[in-house]
């Protein structure tokens, strides 16, 4: 099982994502100019400020050579996790519904937040306990999840809302407290908080993020839970 972690100029959390993924499998960086995904079984689009996030968060990275391959990989059913800036990139690429807007406080905000696992059957949560709260850091200035009313209704109805901020934790103003969503097929997920920063008690405040990487491994290996 091998994770491929994209690296754009301006990525910040790509090395953390590689280290986190290595708790459950192999992981390598994939340079943004590289169309070859190097046989990765799952892709992580990491956090940071790809291409400086000039224009609009994630708007430029979406056009990189590596992302073209990731779009193809996702359309063929490969698991893709976008974290923070990666979530923004996947929305810009049209792989996920909705968009991310500036936080309601208009400031970069960094907090350990509690998330509730809304769906326990997905490729990203099958090793997590449904209804359980995970303690995971969030840090961003564009994290307010937004979608048009009919899209919102559709993703809620379709069980695509995988993670929500627990009561009192939604500092960015996301609609319906949404922290993480999947595409309709369930093989692409975007998550605003950073599970790769919650894999070690000493530096993450918890190890709660590990269950997401474990779930991806199980999904790749075709194990239900």
């Amino acid at each position, binding site marked *: 099982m091998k994770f491929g972690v994209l690296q754009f100029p301006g990525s*910040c959390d790509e090395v953390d994502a590689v280290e986190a993924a290595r708790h459950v499998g192999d992981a390598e960086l994939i340079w943004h100019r590289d169309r070859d995904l190097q046989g990765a079984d799952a892709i992580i689009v990491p956090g940071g400020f790809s291409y400086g996030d000039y224009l609009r968060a994630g708007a430029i990275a979406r056009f990189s050579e590596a992302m073209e391959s990731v779009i193809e990989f996702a359309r063929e059913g490969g698991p893709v996790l976008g974290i923070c800036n990666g979530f923004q990139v996947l929305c810009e690429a049209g792989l996920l519904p909705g968009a991310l807007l500036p936080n309601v406080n208009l400031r970069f905000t960094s907090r350990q937040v509690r998330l509730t696992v809304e769906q326990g059957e997905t490729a990203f949560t099958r090793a997590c306990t449904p209804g359980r709260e995970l303690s995971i850091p969030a840090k961003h200035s564009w994290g307010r999840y937004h979608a048009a009313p009919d899209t919102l209704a559709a993703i809620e109805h379709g069980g695509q809302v995988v993670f929500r901020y627990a009561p009192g934790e939604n500092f960015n103003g996301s609609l319906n407290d949404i922290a993480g969503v999947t595409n309709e097929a369930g093989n692409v997920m975007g998550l605003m908080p950073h599970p790769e920063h919650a894999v070690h008690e*000493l530096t993450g405040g918890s190890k709660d993020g590990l269950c997401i990487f474990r779930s991806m491994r199980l999904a790749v290996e075709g194990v239900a839970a």
Partner: protein
Amino acid sequence: MSGAGVASLPTLDDAIALGLTESEYELICEKQGGRAPNQVELAMYSLLWSEHCAYKHSRKLLRTLPTEGPHVVMGPGENAGAVDTGAGLVCAFKVESHNHPSAVEPFQGAATGVGGILRDIFAIGARPVAVLDSLRFGEPGESARARYLLDGAVAGIGHYGNSIGVPTIGGEVYFEAPYEQSCLVNAMALGLAPKDQLVRSAAAGPGNVVVLFGASTGRDGIGGASVLASAELGEDEDKRPTVQVGDPFEESKLLECSLELLELGLIVALQDLGAAGLTSSASEMASKGEVGIDIDIAAVPLREADMEPFEVMVSESQERMLCVVEPRNVEAVLAVCEKWEVGGAAIGFVTDSGRMRVLRDEELLADMPVRALVDDCPLYDLAPAKPAQPLYEPPRAVLTGEESPGETLLALLGSPNLASRRPLFEQYDSIVGSRTIRRPEEADAAVLALPDGSALAVSIDCNGRRVAADPRRGTVAAVLECAANLACVGAEPLGATNNLNFGNPEKPHIAWQLSESVAGLGEACRALDAPIVGGNVSLYNEGATGPIYPTPVIGMVGRLPDGGRAGRLGFVNAADTLALVGPFAPSQAASELAKLRGQQLPDGLPEIDLAAAAEALAAVRDAVRSGTLSSAHDVAEGGVAVALAESAIAGRLGAEVTLGEGHWEALGPDGDLPDPGWPEGSAAAALFGEGSGGILVSGPEPGLRALAARTHVRLIGRVAGGRLRVSLDGHELIDADVAELAAVHAEGLRELFA
């Protein structure tokens, strides 16, 4: 000599307008072989001979500081200092100021301050792993300007650090009226490198190529070092164009590009471009290597085509680096630049002439001896004189002195200098890089994990009000506070860096503050084995309303053998015993309470027994390392009562505390230590008095008693319940709900960022 400047040779008046004195101008003419310097040369001399670059009023004092120690790998004189962490890695670190630009434009001033200090770290080959900042503003409750500067500076620090992926793990901020006109924005950065990857900045090898890489060169920051940083600020608005604009994305690429160049062994020397741009970078590289450098400005990539030669040489455009490359490697260097989408151009050569020459194609525009530019600026002796009258107005009183101890505690916890810094540090990414073991407000020092399981601890501190009351002892106290912060997480010092922020040193009373402070700095760093491996000086921080409080900001880096045992400040276990450890003798002099009561600064602070304080810190450090303490927190602003409240708030646990001789159990090594002293008859001094050498610890009682083999221990109570109850000499003075204390503490600064 041909070309620019010859037709209109600048005069003495021009030199004076650029900040040089008449005698300095005459000396420059002499160094130029008896001829007047042309425009390009005068621009370059005026910057390199400015206070900012030449340290002409401080260098003699700085030479008295301790700079050597067993852990020092690189001392002062390089882009940053470095110490051996013992984990197979060296830690490079330095603090630097960006005060004057931040006073003009706080967002960009602070952002480029962070950018500049990060470049200093990767210029010696280390990957930046942390930023801390030290900020000073006027009173936010009274001054809209203070709130504007605070908001802009915090946003600027966050913008740069967050975007480049280096965590901001700690810092400090104080609000005092003397910083109203001249705010302070000091940024410290730490980096890690394998020992053999460190690179120096000395140019070497005549015939080698000088490559400029990074952003292109524009008109921003023209003359910043002399105009902004070396004179008192007057009409700020006119100077706005001299503030540089930062681009963290460009720097992120520049950082990766620089580290890759070093990893591939492609460069001989590396230097960042900071104050005075190409002028200082090239001249200093040449000076350190005792060689000459020829720069062809026609080869410098420009943002604006019609820039004057002197503008190209002094531009402070951000995100640029200069390196020296063997001719056979130039192509490979430019290929790495291209990979990272960073501009790169060969702009000159190392020569054996010992001269700094500027050419435009074949035309010689400037020709100066490197030694004259870099080393021959006259150094001045200060003329210190202790002021006969107080320099600073008493602060505005917000407490009458009639308040109860409980009301006083709440007022202190909600006051700008003591309220929770969460509204600031929540705007910073403190965890990227996955090394952060202790985040802000979890412990007295920030703690970073190292690959072998050990950890680095770092603290930055300086209470300027105490330095203003007594420049020597106040500076000793600032160094001790840093060391105490390290001890509370279990770390011993490896080295320190300092940023001396003072007023105009040409005035005798400022010269006195500066010389006393540097004496105290040297004394304390020697006693604590914390050599100064680098630093910065920022003078002329004064305006029409007078000088800032003298503010020698200290940054200290230490190590602890086991990151998993890093101390924390919050109470952990109900029923743990509480002790006040160390030779702590509180006094109201220059305390936060004295400030809130509007009291004039005292003339002098009580003497500090450095050896006794150092031994207390060592005892606490060893106890934290051995795991016998649950919490450790140094007693600082607001005294014992505030320290208790902070540990209670952080741990969400109350305490029952009994203070006063005869009411606590006092322990200590038999007869070896003098009684530290305890204020009699003054509840305010006992509860809220300040002084060095006190640490509040909690833990199982045997471990606390064991500390008495080395230092004073007063067993003052136990951790319990949800209320903080403090009695003094048998009378209960404070009984407060910890949740209420936490709410007041949390709200003090919150509204400033609403």
